[in-house]
């Protein structure tokens, strides 16, 4: 990396004009990200035509600002009302929302903002130093590796099952099944469409997400009695030193992991956040029960999805291969301005590329300045009586469900998913595996079919792909290891107290209820 070009990039990005547009981008991104159904892709696509009058550098800085602004905006709605604005912030709704319900919405948002900032900073440095280098790894990543990685991601279902493994597997299957509805992209066959033109287009995960998280949560609250408004003082909305200590490890770990996953085509920020949640659960040794408002469970995925968002720029810039839907639109913007991304772009358009990379850092600082002081203010929203909040959540949720494809069908899907989700939740079925199956299933099927075709209709192709083999081996370890460790613990316990233990005891150790192990 040539530091003079980097300094030149900062000089360009720090011009008042560009800083203002960067600020405008992150602000729009934050607002768009808060609204479920309107993700980075739709926000960028909406504003793309408006950037035509700007210089290419300013236009790209604005669009990139929207892109990473949405990552944080999605977190705000996840934490406050448990409606993820983005697929990559689904897991933030678990522990983030639990923290909010305990009167710690402000710290939860601040933790997310700081984790995102740190991850953003680390990943930008990685992007600047290693973009051309890491892109070579991305080139080796074909369908077999993508399939293996997605399979690894699916294994994190156990993290979202809270000890109810059979129910978690069933819900993962239900998610996969919902993902198959509609026309199969590989063969053109209409699956489970029952002659309905609406079903031919498939069932979108955002609509299901809104139903499962917003509508079903509201029904549940009505059944349990509305939660009282959160009565916390403004100063309780501030982050503590303990929070900072608990978030350090997960943030640093997931910054690296998220960046690596983000630059892999097909993986993206959602897979990065799912895996981050799973990895941090396995590492976590703290006293709190996972899923009840653990700081690490919020900081890790937040760091991962931000780092992945930046990592996705590596293949986009260096190879011209978009790592996600939003970077595909950014790629379109490059082409719109007559710039061809690829290996030569770093040489031919070095001023623009370095200015863009420098603007990522400035955008991250602006996001922190914007969101850290506002975290207690956003958090104070939960002091409003629930009776006023939930009708607003319903209509904004319906708007999001409509906006995905601009059709009423989305609203009906959300409505039905809400009722079904409530029923499943009452019976103790975890809902997150449905979302995971629905998001990862179609990607996994595509990679699976392509892998099979690559190997001449054989799966022996895996034997020639060392990266895929390593990931598959990790999958096997992840499946077998917990069972082996449990057996080992039982053996040790039996040896330690041979008279006190019967064969049946270990199996009866954890009665499981709808809200996790009792």
């Amino acid at each position: 990396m040539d530091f003079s070009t980097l300094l030149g990039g900062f000089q360009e990005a720090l011009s008042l004009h560009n800083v203002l547009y960067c600020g405008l981008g992150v602000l729009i991104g934050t607002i768009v990200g808060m609204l479920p159904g309107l993700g980075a892709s739709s926000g960028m696509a909406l504003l793309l035509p408006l950037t035509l009058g700007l210089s290419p550098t300013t236009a790209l800085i604005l669009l990139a600002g929207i892109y990473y602004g949405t990552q944080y905006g999605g977190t705000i709605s996840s934490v406050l009302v448990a409606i993820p604005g983005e697929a990559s912030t689904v897991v933030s709704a678990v522990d983030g929302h639990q923290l909010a319900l305990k009167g710690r919405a402000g710290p939860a948002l601040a933790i997310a903002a700081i984790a995102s900032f740190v991850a953003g900073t680390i990943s930008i440095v990685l992007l600047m130093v290693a973009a051309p280098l890491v892109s070579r790894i991305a080139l080796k990543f074909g369908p077999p590796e993508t399939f293996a990685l997605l399979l690894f991601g699916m294994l994190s279902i156990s993290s979202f099952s809270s000890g109810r493994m059979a129910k978690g597997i069933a819900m993962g299957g239900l998610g996969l099944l919902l993902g198959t509805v509609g026309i199969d992209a590989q063969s053109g066959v209409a699956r489970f469409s029952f002659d309905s033109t609406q079903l031919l287009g498939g069932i979108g995960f955002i609509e299901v997400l809104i139903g499962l998280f917003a509508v079903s949560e509201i029904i549940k609250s009505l059944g349990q009695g509305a939660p009282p408004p959160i009565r916390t003082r403004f100063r309780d909305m501030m982050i503590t030193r303990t929070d900072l200590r608990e978030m350090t490890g997960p943030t640093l770990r997931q910054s690296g992991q998220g960046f690596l996953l983000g630059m892999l085509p097909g993986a993206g920020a959602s897979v990065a956040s799912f895996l981050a949640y799973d990895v941090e659960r396995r590492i976590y040794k703290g006293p709190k029960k996972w899923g009840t408002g653990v700081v690490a469970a919020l900081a890790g995925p937040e760091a991962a999805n931000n780092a992945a968002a930046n990592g996705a720029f590596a293949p986009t810039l260096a190879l011209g291969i978009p790592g996600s839907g939003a970077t595909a639109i950014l790629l379109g913007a490059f082409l719109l301005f007559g710039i061809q991304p690829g290996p030569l772009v770093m040489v031919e358009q070095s001023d623009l590329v370095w200015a863009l990379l420098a603007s990522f850092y400035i955008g991250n600082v602006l996001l922190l300045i914007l969101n850290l002081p506002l975290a207690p203010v956003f958090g104070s929203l939960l002091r409003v009586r629930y009776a006023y909040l939930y009708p607003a959540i319903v209509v904004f949720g319906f708007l999001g469900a409509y906006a995905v494809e601009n059709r009423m069908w989305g609203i009906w899907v959300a409505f039905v998913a809400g009722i079904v989700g409530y029923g499943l939740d009452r019976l103790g079925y975890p809902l997150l595996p449905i979302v995971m199956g629905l998001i990862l299933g179609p990607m996994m099927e595509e990679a699976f079919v392509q892998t099979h075709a690559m190997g001449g209709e054989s799966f022996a192709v895996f034997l020639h792909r060392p990266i895929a083999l390593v990931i598959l081996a990790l999958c096997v370890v992840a499946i077998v290891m917990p069972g082996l460790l449990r057996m080992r613990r039982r053996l040790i316990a039996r040896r330690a107290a041979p008279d006190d233990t019967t064969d049946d005891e270990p199996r009866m150790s954890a009665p499981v209820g709808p809200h996790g192990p009792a």
Partner: protein
Amino acid sequence: MAAAEHWERAGAATLFAIGVGAAIGGVRYGLSQDTGAVGPGFMPLLAGMLLAGGSLTVLLRVGRQAPSPGNTPAEAVPADGAERPPVDRRVAIRQIVLALVIMGIGAGLMSLVGFIIAAAGIVFCTLVVVERLALWRAVTATVVITAMLWLVVHFLLIPVPAGPFFLAGGR
């Protein structure tokens, strides 16, 4: 307890039936194509097997486990653990049904009267009928929420159904 077990069994049996149906559907769609490529039925079969397998395990375990908390709406344990006033089961069911009816009618009316008007109707009816708030409070909250909704629709150019009142400027 018996009712809870009954519901758990019914739920698992329904999911099992859906899983078996999906697996059969998968086989019918074809597990491989003429070219030898993976067929469109492979994923539905896999999904159906997971769903059927998981729910069958649940079905076989019902009644063998210790009682779990939250088997009726009135007894349900809030996930947040927040202290809430005790809820009469009949009142809770009435509120849920009313809220769902209002949401359903509101969603159905969106294409006819326009998104904004229907959304305002959902908010107002929920506040008055379900929450039984004073009229002036309900009107104020409806105006504020509808104004926010309109701003989002207007500035993000979301083409929501405008209805005869053309409030959204959509279609």
